[in-house]
């Protein structure tokens, strides 16, 4: 019965619906982008009507929001946080800095392309992206989830060695527990 | 018949004089002779005591003069028990001090002579039936005690001895005054005779005599304002002498006081006076004891407190009270002697005899420490050791006499006593030894002496019936004044026939 394909499909639909409408966000306020989150969450734009809600710890979170540039120092922590999150999990790159370094494109200690180090499901462009952009980003993510295409975590698992190599490349003293998903 | 009471005085006195003579012949004899004498006396005392218990008081007349005029010795259950106790203590202390001053012949000779004198005098005080004779014995005891106090010839011991001497001579003076008063009034010195004629005395003279007796004997019996010499003397005298003071001399003093109060005169208020003075002694000396930092002084003060308790028990005045007092007396003699004997080994090699110098001795001197603890428990009155029974009988006697407040006072003072004894026990067993102290192992004879005392404590603790029968008779004998008079005086009559 459980293995039956149709019922599995129904279960998938329900699960995806639930995942889609209940996004608990762990906002990693790395850069200036963090300032855009309060308006997103509060009365004006009210992200909670989409089911988006803050999560306190990585164990409870579904979405990791990288709000801005990442230095190599913070990258280590971000990776740690990402690895502590439970499947299914999604990453949103927030602002230009996560895409190509943005205004820090030539900084010696800033990460330029986030997706070399962790699987990003959605990038939100802008410097800074306005709350509307953030909301549209969430909506896009929800669509991806509904379609079952937000599989960054799976990619990360599959290409772990490549990611690890990149990560170790920029982080000099790599003292982290093994990733046990 | 092994002998008669007169031997209790004659033999040790003789021995005291023989010691130097024999010492010229065989040096070891100065050590052995006292022991033999005391052993003989002990056997004699026990046989006589058995006899007395069954047949009644033995009165012996010296030199053929019949009682009202001559000197007589009374071996009643009461005096007999005290004499036996003293001789027993003397014997045990002899065992303990057998090796005392082992190397120094002259010193040892002096010690044993004085010790024999001390025992003679004390036993004499108890046994004699003549009041002037008693005075003489008190002087013998005192003088040997002065000498023994100053035995070490240190500055401190000489000072202590001098204090003792000063107060002691005052005591003799008052005693003599009292005796003169009595003789001038009644023309007799025989105790029984005085007792039977006491009502003939003018009341004010009687009271005066009692007061002088109380002061004179109170110094020996260590009652409160008169006992300033005690801590110094106990602390400065050699260990066995301290034990002898606590186990023998005080007992004699208390006996004399009690005899005066119970038998000689029936002045009203003396019992209450005993209680008040006993309580005062007890409270003040226990308070002083808890603040001592030297072991022997602490023991001395504690001894004062115990004697105060004994006086209170006598002051109750009932048969039960006297029984309890006797019990306490015996327990104090045994327990305190044990404490002095073992305590002097605990602080053997320290100059100042501080309590803190007993730290950690439990590890190095296990037997001595154990016996000290046993003695302390017994003195404090922890069941099932001997002290408990004394305290319990005393309490119940007081309760029967409806003296509840006194019980409460005594118990609160006992609390103080308990605290300082347990402090010492804690130090002995659970503190680290001070590095500059080298413990001295007790000699075999010392261990035997202390162990004997320990065994007696345990035996009495578990089986108080062993002595309680005797003590009941003794207390009846003390209370029955008429019988005492009759016994003594009728012996005289018998002789005339």
């Amino acid at each position, binding site marked *: 019965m459980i293995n039956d394909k149709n019922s599995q499909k129904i279960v998938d639909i329900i699960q995806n619906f639930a995942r889609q409408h209940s996004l608990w966000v762990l906002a990693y306020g790395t850069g200036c982008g963090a300032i855009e989150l309060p308006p997103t969450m509060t009365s004006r734009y009210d992200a909670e009507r989409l089911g988006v809600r803050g999560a306190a710890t990585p*164990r409870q979170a579904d979405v990791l929001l990288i709000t801005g540039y990442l230095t190599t120092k913070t990258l280590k*922590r*971000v990776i*740690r*946080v990402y690895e*502590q999150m439970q*499947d299914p999990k999604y990453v949103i790159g927030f602002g230009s800095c996560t895409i190509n370094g943005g205004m820090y494109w030539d900084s010696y200690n800033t990460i330029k392309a986030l997706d070399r180090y962790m699987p990003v499901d959605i990038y939100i462009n802008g410097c800074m992206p306005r709350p509307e952009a953030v909301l549209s980003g969430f909506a896009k993510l929800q669509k991806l989830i509904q379609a079952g295409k937000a599989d960054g975590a799976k990619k990360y698992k599959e290409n772990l060695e490549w990611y690890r190599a990149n990560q170790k490349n920029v982080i000099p003293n790599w*003292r*982290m*527990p093994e990733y*046990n*998903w | 018949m092994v002998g008669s009471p007169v031997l209790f005085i004659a033999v040790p006195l003789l021995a005291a004089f023989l010691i130097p003579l024999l010492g010229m012949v065989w040096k070891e004899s100065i050590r052995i002779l006292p022991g033999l004498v005391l052993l003989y006396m002990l056997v004699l005392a026990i046989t006589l005591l058995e006899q007395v218990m069954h047949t009644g008081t033995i009165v012996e007349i010296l030199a053929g003069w019949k009682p009202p005029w001559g000197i007589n010795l009374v071996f009643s259950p009461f005096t007999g028990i005290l004499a036996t106790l003293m001789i027993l203590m003397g014997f045990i202390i002899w065992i303990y001090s057998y090796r005392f001053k082992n190397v120094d012949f002259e010193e040892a000779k002096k010690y044993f002579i004085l010790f024999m004198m001390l025992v003679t005098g004390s036993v004499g005080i108890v046994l004699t039936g003549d009041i002037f004779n008693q005075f003489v014995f008190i002087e013998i005891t005192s003088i040997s005690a002065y000498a023994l106090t100053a035995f070490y010839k240190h500055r401190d011991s000489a000072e202590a001895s001098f*204090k003792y001497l*000063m*107060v002691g001579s*005052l005591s003799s003076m008052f005693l003599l005054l009292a005796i003169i008063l009595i003789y001038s009034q009644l023309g007799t010195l025989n105790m029984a005779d005085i007792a039977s004629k006491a009502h003939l005395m003018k009341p004010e003279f009687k*009271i*005066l005599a*009692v*007061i*002088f007796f109380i*002061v004179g004997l*109170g110094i020996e019996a260590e009652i409160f*304002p*008169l006992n*300033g*010499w005690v*801590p*110094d003397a106990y602390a400065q005298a050699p260990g066995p002498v301290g034990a002898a003071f606590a186990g023998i001399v005080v007992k004699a003093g208390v006996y004399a006081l009690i005899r005066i109060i119970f038998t000689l005169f029936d002045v009203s*208020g003396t019992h209450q006076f005993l209680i008040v003075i006993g309580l005062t002694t007890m409270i*003040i000396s226990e*308070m*002083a004891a*808890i*603040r001592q930092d030297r072991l022997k002084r602490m023991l001395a003060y504690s001894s004062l407190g115990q004697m105060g308790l004994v006086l209170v028990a006598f002051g109750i005045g009932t048969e039960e009270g006297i029984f309890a007092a006797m019990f306490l007396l015996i327990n104090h003699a045994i327990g305190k002697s044990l404490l002095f004997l073992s305590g002097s080994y605990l602080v053997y090699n320290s100059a100042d005899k501080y309590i803190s110098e007993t730290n950690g001795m439990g590890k190095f001197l296990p037997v001595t420490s154990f016996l000290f603890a046993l003695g302390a428990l017994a003195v404090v009155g922890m*069941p*099932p050791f001997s002290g*408990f029974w004394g*305290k*319990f009988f005393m*309490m*119940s006697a007081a*309760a029967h006499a*409806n003296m*509840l407040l006194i*019980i*409460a006072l005594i*118990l*609160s003072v*006992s*609390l103080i006593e*308990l*605290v300082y004894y*347990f*402090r010492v026990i*804690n130090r002995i067993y*659970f*503190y680290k030894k001070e590095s500059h102290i080298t413990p001295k192992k007790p000699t075999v004879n010392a261990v035997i002496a202390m162990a004997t005392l320990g065994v007696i404590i345990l035996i009495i603790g578990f089986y108080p*019936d062993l002595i*309680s029968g005797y003590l009941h008779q003794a207390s009846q004998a003390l209370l029955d004044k008429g019988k005492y008079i009759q016994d003594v005086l009728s012996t005289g009559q018998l002789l005339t026939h």
Partner: protein
Amino acid sequence: MNMIYILFTLMFGGAILTFLAHKVSGLLRDTLFVLTVLASTVLFYTKIHTGDTVDFSISGLSLQWGINAYGRIFSMIVLGLGVMASFYSVSYMKGKERLGYFYFNFLISLMSMMGILMSHDLVSFFIFWEMMTWSSYFIVIYNGKNVQRSGINYIIFSALGAYAMLMAIVMVYAHTQSLMIPDMMQAFPFFPAAYKIWLPILFLTAFTVKAAMMPLHVWAPDAYADSPMAYTSVFSGALSKMGIYGMIMVFVTMVNYLPDDTWFRETIAWLGAITAIMATLWAIAQDDARKLLAWSSVAQLGYIITGVAVGTPLAMLSALFLSVMHALFKATLFMAVGAIEKQTGTTKFTEVTGLIRKMPWTFISSLLAIIGLAGIPPLGGFVGKWMLYESLINSNHYILVIAIFFASTSAFLYCYKFLFGFFLGQEEKEWEHVKEAPALMVLPMIIMATLLLVFGVFPGIVLKPIDLGMQTLGYSTTAGTFWSMSGLFNEWGNQIMMRPLAYAIGGTFLFFLIILTVKGFKETRYVTTKDISSSGEVPLEHENLTFSEGFYQPFLRAVCPVMKRRMMTYYQGFGQGMEAFFDYLRRVYSGNGQTYAIYVIVFVVILLLFKNSLFG
């Protein structure tokens, strides 16, 4: 020879033999020790029957030993704990010094506790009481820690109590000419009025010292904490119950006959409740497990005292039941602390963490014991507390029940602290080598924790002997009335209502545990305690992030006004004042011969001046 004599000879002889055997060999000593306890237990339960007595006399005092049903309740605690603790201590004390001394005093204290229970007269009661005091005292100072503080405190307060009791005993003896306790009971209504007030007060002073009631409790935390844990289990579990034993007798035989006993009962009950509250608060503030459990013992005894003082049949039943339960769970907990101390060398919560996987059996038994202590169903503690509340409410003690409830709620705080401090928290490299305690130590704990569970579900096992004992004390049987009326018990005293509830608890728990386990079984992983969500930071091996310093700081801040004053400081002040006074008085002995001569003269003068009033 009577079996009772044999029992005491056995225990006393065993004690001495054990002491002597210490010099010969360790194995012989341990064997003798355990055999003595076992043999006397077996002897007691097979050969000595309720109602057996033996008469004898010492120095004209006629004494009697025997056992009644009331004493049997407590003998259950004493011998049961004795057996458990003896096995435990053989393993716990291995390799320590002065074991002969320890075992000797251990056996003597067991013997004297049995003696207290079997004394039918006041003198042997007192003798055994004092023997219990000094033997336990010698164990309290066995470790040599804080000897002058905890030891002397203990002995002072015990002696205070004992002397109060001695005074009461001689008062009774002087008045009735008999030392028999039954005679005293019969004669009490006819005592003079002053005696009727003072006797219970004096007796209660003695008993409340051992039961560590409020103004007389200051010795208890130190003494419990400083004695070796192998003995503390007996000390806190059984020895303190002797105080309860005596208190109940006083309340039943004396307070009941007071013309107006309400104020008396209320005072004691409130003192018990205040003890419970204050000791609980102090337990919360402790960082050392020994201290925590010691204060907790004081608190638990506070409940029992309240129950005794209220004195309705149900309250008495609850007090006795709680006594048995307290003996079980507190002994288990002290043993657990001992096991941890043995394995890690420390008992501080701030030092040891995360032992749960290293010492699982110790954890399980202390978990059960803690649940019992906290009074959470279905363990034994709940039954006792439930009866206590019910009795307090029925007897109109409204505020008292709040006080007790407050204490019992706050108890959760230290209960959690105990479990968390040792067993939970981060698992450190420092304690990686720690292994489970030896079987001989774990087994007694497990057995007692299991008993706690059994007694919780089938309280009738314990309630029935208690009921018999209460009938000896003159209560009518509680079996038919209270047990069935309460709806919690059936006529056998077992928890009928608890059965469906236990099914519900068990069923729910299992169901959701299965859901939790089965759901995504393959994707559920164990991660170490270093792998925690701490802002992306990875704690290093030597970094211990466990929260243990200032554990209940906010709560303590909230209650700090009541904790500002400590009873101890008052006693210390009193003690110092007394010593200063003594020191002042001691100067009477100036050490100056002239002064002494003057004393003599002054004494004579005073006597002469007042001769008429003194001897007139």
